[in-house]
């Protein structure tokens, strides 16, 4: 494969954005600066970025409780995301959603979801709309290994398969659902094997390799755009951080986690590969890193200073047509 440098910089920038954004969010949360709960995507950046690189702004994604990475990968901006996590009016959702409910409809990001498995059918519906209107759009649903046991997995994929909808189901198998290891709740090795039950392709990919994810997604997207119907992609990865920031993680050892991170950090993977192949220089990567770090720092400053929603906004945005209080 041959990638042009701009594309590589774009991939790296998005991955680094997620990494630095989340490191900062984790820090701020532990410092008691952020309300709510935050679930970090660190270590899984290659999946969101690899998949979204195969999409356009007109394509849709649905996301999860662990949604920051999906947002940024799809093109959401750092400042309104940070502001949202702070609960500020300048946030994407005017402070009404918070970390678990960020959406950016301008880039086709149809929202994070606090309900595990809540996104399947939303993606299926968006794909149905695309098919009905023949727009050529596709929809991608990100979901976890834990989420793969929700009934909505079955109902959504079955209907999408029966109707050959342009939707791609991307399983982020990070091997943990909160404190519960995947293998204790699922008797099979690969979530992708479930695809056969719906007559659609099931593909396994290294979720720590942005290139592999991108190529896999590209094929699935092409298939979907051409009317070939859904694909189930299982991206194997590992949840590097606790389930939420502050998780005591009594259920696994630090060593296990560190080993995974040392061996599979998708950013390090990427940097190694592109510098070894001489596609990009370390200096390019450093420059991106520095630019993103500055942007994140700036976003924190602005989000911190930004005003909270005012009392009078409480009822805004409930009904499009008003009418109730």
């Amino acid at each position, binding site marked *: 494969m041959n990638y042009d440098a701009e594309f590589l910089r774009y991939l790296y920038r998005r991955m680094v954005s997620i990494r630095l954004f989340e490191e900062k969010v984790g820090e701020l949360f532990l410092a008691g600066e952020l309300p709510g709960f935050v679930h970090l995507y660190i270590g899984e950046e290659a999946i969101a970025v690899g998949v979204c690189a195969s999409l356009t702004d007109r394509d*849709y994604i*649905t996301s999860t409780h662990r949604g920051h990475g999906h947002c940024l990968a799809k093109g959401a901006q750092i400042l309104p995301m940070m502001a949202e996590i702070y609960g500020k009016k300048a*946030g*994407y*959702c*005017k*402070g*009404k*959603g918070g970390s678990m*409910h960020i*959406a*950016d*409809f301008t880039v086709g990001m*149809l*929202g994070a*979801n*606090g*309900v595990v498995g*809540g996104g*399947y*059918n*939303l*993606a*299926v*519906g*968006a*794909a*149905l*709309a*695309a098919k*009905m*209107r023949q727009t050529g*759009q596709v*929809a991608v649903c990100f979901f976890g290994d834990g989420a793969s046991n929700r*009934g*909505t997995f*079955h*109902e*959504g994929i*079955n*209907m999408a398969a*029966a*109707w050959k909808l342009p939707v791609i189901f991307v399983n982020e198998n990070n091997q943990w659902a909160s404190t519960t290891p995947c293998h204790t709740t699922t008797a099979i090795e690969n979530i992708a094997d479930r695809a056969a039950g719906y007559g659609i392709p099931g593909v396994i990919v290294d979720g720590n390799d942005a290139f592999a994810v991108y190529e896999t997604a590209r094929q699935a997207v092409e298939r979907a755009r051409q009317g070939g119907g859904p694909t189930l992609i299982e991206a194997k990865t590992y949840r590097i951080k606790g389930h939420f920031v502050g998780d005591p993680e009594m259920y696994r050892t630090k060593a296990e986690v560190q080993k995974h991170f040392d061996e599979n950090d998708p950013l390090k993977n990427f940097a190694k590969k592109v510098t070894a192949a001489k596609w990009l220089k370390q200096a390019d990567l450093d420059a991106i890193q520095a630019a993103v770090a500055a942007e994140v720092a700036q976003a924190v400053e602005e989000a911190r200073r930004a005003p909270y929603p005012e009392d009078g906004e409480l009822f*805004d*945005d*409930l*009904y*499009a*047509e008003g*009418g*109730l209080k």
Partner: protein
Amino acid sequence: MRKITFSEATLEAMTEEMQRDDRVFVMGEDIARQGGIFGQFKGLPQKFGTGRVLDTPISETAIAGAGVGAALAGLRPVVDMHFADFITVCMDEVVNQMAKIRYMFGGQCTIPLVLRAPDGIIRSAAAQHSQSLESWFLHVPGLKVVIPSNPADAKGLLKAAIRSDDPVLYFEHKALFPMKGPVPGGDHVVPIGKASISRAGQDVTIVSYSAMAHRALEAADKLAGQGIEAEVIDLRTISPLDKETIFTSLAKTHRLVIAHEAVKTGGVGAEIAALVAEEALDLLDAPVARLGAPYVPVPFSPSLEKLVKITADDIAGAALAICK
């Protein structure tokens, strides 16, 4: 005015709105091939193709959830629940997604979706096919809930619901589908949120909706025979509740009967009685009379089923008791 059935009235509404706006489509179980259990979708696939009238798998979470997704992507779905009892299967999609998404996302999107749910008791359909669950949704900010009692309102409210940019639950009583009634021609739209006064009177106010609205009118007839003139209010919409119409009537009659088919405890009647106890207590000259099903699942046997149904006599009796 021409008379058509409730079922035909909903079909006219669907047809007109699908003609008017090609973003409108409908999906559910057995609606294309069968035309709906109550004939309420008959002929739609012939008119609009099976691309806009879709028979789904038996997957209520997919029906409701994909409805929400399609709405987010710019369509205007009508989704059918087969029986209202099966909303239980997709309550997450209705309550946590449909109702909350717009608010949680700070108004970035609209959810112009209608969920149709045939409800109510009909010929010993028993506990899992006879429920009236509308009151749950009063308690869920973000939804609107309509519940027509006659063909004209069925048509007008369905059209309004389809045109609404907010999600609307449309409850239609199974026993009403064959009922005939006058329906105005032309673009007949009934605004969501406005109750109607189906009979004027000054002695007692009877508030009801759906099939029970007919029992209320029958009760008013009986009461008239005893010299009591009841004002009968058909709510038509239960969320938002048309408090003003109820209070205005009460200011005249000072007596209130509320009747619905749903279980009395925790029903819509509770909310209405509470509003009165809070905001219009002075208007009351007598205790509120509240009628609803007794506290049991709907039993199968006809001999028991009839015991859980509120009758015109029950309503008239309750009205009489507070008019003494």
